[in-house]
C-alpha cells in the first residue's frame, strides 16, 4: 500500500497529470454543459420529440429503398471502411446487378428476405456499407411518436431518476477523452525512469518487476480517474440544484464513471504500459490514436446509442432511453470485455518484461 501511495503521489504531482486534468475537465464540461441546460422535468412538446432509429420492417424497408435508389441513380455509394467515409462507383455490369437487387428489395415480403438481399448489396459495394442488416437501422431515423416520447419520459423519471439521463451523456463524452489521453500520460510516466537515469537503481531493488507494474497500473487508474470523478461530482451538484424537488439518483454520475468510463481508461492506460514495455518509446500513442480514430468514426454513425464492440460506446442523447435499457446487457458485456482485455494486456506486459530480461524459457517457467 505504501508503494501504491508513493506512485499515486508521483503521478499526481507531475506536470503531465496537471495538463491531463485540465484537458479532461474542460473537455467534459464544455461538451456536456449544453445538454445540462435542457430540461427533463417535463415531457417535450410534440415538435421537440427526439429522433430514434425505427426497428419496424416497413420503415426500414422504405428508408433503405429511398437511400439505395438515390445512390443508384447518382452511381455514387458511400461505404465506411474502418469507419471512414469512402465514395464508390459501380461499373456497368455491377450497376445492372444492383438494379436487380433493388427490385428484389422492393419485393421483399419480410425482414429475413430483406436481410438476405441486403447482404448481397453490401457485397456488391465491397463491404462496410450502410446496407448490412445490422447497419440499416441507421438509415431509418425518424421522430418519436407521442407514445414513444411519453414512454421515454417515463423511463427518465422512473429509472434514470433524471440524473441517469445526464450521466449517460457525461459517460459518452468522458470515454472519448479517456480513450486517448491516458496512453500518453502513462507513456510519459514509464519513460520517466529512463529519462531520469533512475531505472537501474529502481530495478535493482527487492520489489519485483511485476509488483511494480501492477502497482503503477493501479496508481494510474486511480489518479487518471480523479478528474472524471471530479466532473461527476460537479455535474451531480448541477443536477441537484436544477431539480431541487425531484427524486434523483445522486450516484448516477459516479456509477457511470466507474462502470462506463473506467473500462476505457483501463484499456488506454494498459496500452501505454504494454507498448512502452514493447518499444521503450512513445510509439504506442500513435497506435492508440489509430484505434481511437477508428472507434470514433464507427461510433459517429450512431452517436445517440451504439455500444457493440466499441472501445468508447456512444450515447450522446438525453433520450433514446428505451434503446439504452433494451441494450443495457450489451453495454455491460462490452464494458466487461474491455476490463478483461485490459487485464490481458497487463499480463502480456509482465510476460514481455520477463522475456526481455532473461529469455523466453525463464519467463515461461515463472508464469
Amino acid at each position, binding site marked *: 500500500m505504501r508503494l501504491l501511495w508513493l506512485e499515486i503521489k508521483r503521478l499526481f504531482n507531475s506536470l503531465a497529470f496537471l495538463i491531463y486534468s485540465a484537458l479532461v475537465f474542460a473537455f467534459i464540461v464544455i461538451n456536456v454543459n449544453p445538454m445540462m441546460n435542457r430540461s427533463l422535468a417535463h415531457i417535450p412538446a410534440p415538435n421537440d420529440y427526439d429522433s430514434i432509429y425505427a426497428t419496424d420492417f416497413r420503415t426500414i424497408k422504405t428508408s433503405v429503398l429511398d437511400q439505395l435508389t438515390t445512390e443508384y441513380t447518382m452511381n455514387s455509394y458511400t461505404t465506411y471502411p474502418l469507419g471512414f467515409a469512402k465514395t464508390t462507383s459501380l461499373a456497368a455490369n455491377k450497376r445492372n446487378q444492383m438494379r436487380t437487387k433493388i427490385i428484389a428489395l422492393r419485393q421483399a415480403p419480410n425482414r429475413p428476405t430483406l436481410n438476405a438481399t441486403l447482404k448481397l448489396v453490401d457485397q456488391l459495394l465491397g463491404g462496410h456499407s450502410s446496407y448490412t442488416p445490422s447497419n440499416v437501422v441507421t438509415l431509418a431515423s425518424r421522430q418519436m411518436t407521442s407514445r414513444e416520447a411519453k414512454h421515454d419520459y417515463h423511463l427518465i423519471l422512473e429509472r434514470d431518476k433524471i440524473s441517469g439521463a445526464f450521466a449517460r451523456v457525461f459517460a459518452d463524452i468522458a470515454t472519448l477523452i479517456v480513450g486517448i489521453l491516458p496512453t500518453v500520460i502513462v507513456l510519459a510516466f514509464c519513460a520517466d525512469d529512463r529519462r*531520469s537515469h533512475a531505472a537501474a537503481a529502481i530495478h535493482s531493488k527487492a520489489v519485483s518487476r511485476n509488483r511494480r507494474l501492477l502497482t503503477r497500473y493501479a496508481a494510474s487508474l486511480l489518479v487518471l480517474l480523479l478528474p472524471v470523478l471530479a466532473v461527476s461530482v460537479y455535474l451531480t451538484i448541477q443536477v441537484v440544484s436544477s431539480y431541487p424537488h425531484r427524486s434523483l439518483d445522486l450516484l448516477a454520475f459516479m456509477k457511470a464513471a466507474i462502470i462506463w468510463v473506467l473500462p476505457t481508461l483501463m484499456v488506454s492506460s494498459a496500452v501505454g504500459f504494454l507498448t512502452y514495455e514493447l518499444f521503450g518509446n512513445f510509439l504506442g500513442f500513435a497506435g492508440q490514436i489509430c484505434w481511437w480514430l477508428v472507434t470514433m468514426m464507427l461510433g459517429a454513425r450512431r452517436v445517440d446509442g451504439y455500444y457493440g464492440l466499441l472501445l468508447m460506446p456512444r450515447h450522446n442523447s438525453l433520450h433514446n432511453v428505451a434503446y439504452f435499457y433494451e441494450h443495457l446487457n450489451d453495454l455491460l458485456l462490452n464494458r466487461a470485455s474491455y476490463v478483461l482485455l485490459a487485464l490481458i494486456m497487463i499480463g502480456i506486459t509482465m510476460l514481455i518484461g520477463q522475456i526481455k530480461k532473461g529469455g523466453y524459457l525463464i519467463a515461461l517457467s515463472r508464469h
Partner: protein
Amino acid sequence: MSSIQISNLTKEYRKKPTPALNHLTLEIGNGMFGLLGKNGAGKSTLMKILTTLEQPTSGVAKICDIPLTQPQAVRNLIGYLPQNFSFYPNMKVKAALSYLATLANVPVREQNGRIAQLLDRVNLTAKSGTKVKALSGGMLQRLGIAQALINNPQVLIVDEPTAGLDPEERIRLRNLLTDFATDRTVLLSTHIVSDVEATTNQIGVLDHGQLLFTGTTTELTDLARGHVYQALIPAESAVHFKQTHQISEQVTETNQIHFRFIAATTSEVPVVPTLEEAYLYLQLQHEGAIS
C-alpha cells in the same frame, strides 16, 4: 567464505560477435574489491548480472551463497549504485530515498531513522529537502550511495562512481566507500586506476570479457616489474621514440623529454612500476603488443 562467487559466467548479446563476458570465474571476499577495465571490457555487464538486472547466457554466480536464479533473495542482499545514477528531478532527496526504501522493502517504521542516518553519513542532511535536479554531481553520487545502502546490504556494488567528479568530491566518495567496506563487501568497478589504488589492494582486471588478473595490487605491480623503463630523450627524437615505444608517462624538461615506457626487455635499467603501469602492461601483454 566468499561474498561473491562467479563461475564460468558468460554473457552473449545478439548481433555482437564476441561475448561481453567470456567464461569468467572470480571469488570476492569481504572488504573492498576493485574491478579494473577499459570502457567496454564487460564491467557494467558483470555489474548488471550480479544485480539481477540481466541474466547470464551461461555460468553460475552467487551472492552470499544465494544463486542469481533467486533474484528477490539476491536483491535483498545487495545495494547497487549504477553508472550515471540520477533520480526523478522534481523529487526531493528525502522523498527519493523514501521511495527507494519502499522498493527495497524497508519497513515503513524504520525508513525515517535509516534515511536520516544515511543522509548524515553521506553528508546530505542539509539537502534532504532539496530537489534532486538541484544537486551537484558529487551530491548526486552521494545520494546514489545512500540509496544503495538503504536496505543495509551485505554486498555493495558500485559502477564507475567517480566518473565526472572533481578531485575533492572524488576523494570524498572514495573515503566513503572505504568506510562502508569495513563491515561488508564493496565491489568497485572503474577504469580509473587511482580510484582503486586509493581504496583497496584486492583487484581484478577485466578485458574483452575475460579476467586477466586477480590478486593484490602488489602482485600486479610485481608482474610488471622489469618491464617498465625510463629514458631522457632529446625533444627532436621524441616523435620517433613515441612511435616505437609504449609510453606510460612523459614529462618535458627544457630541451629533453623524460619518458617512462613499457617494454618486454631493453638495455635500459628498469624502474619500479606504478599500479597504472602494471595495469597498462597487463593490457598490452593481453593484446600482444609486447611479449
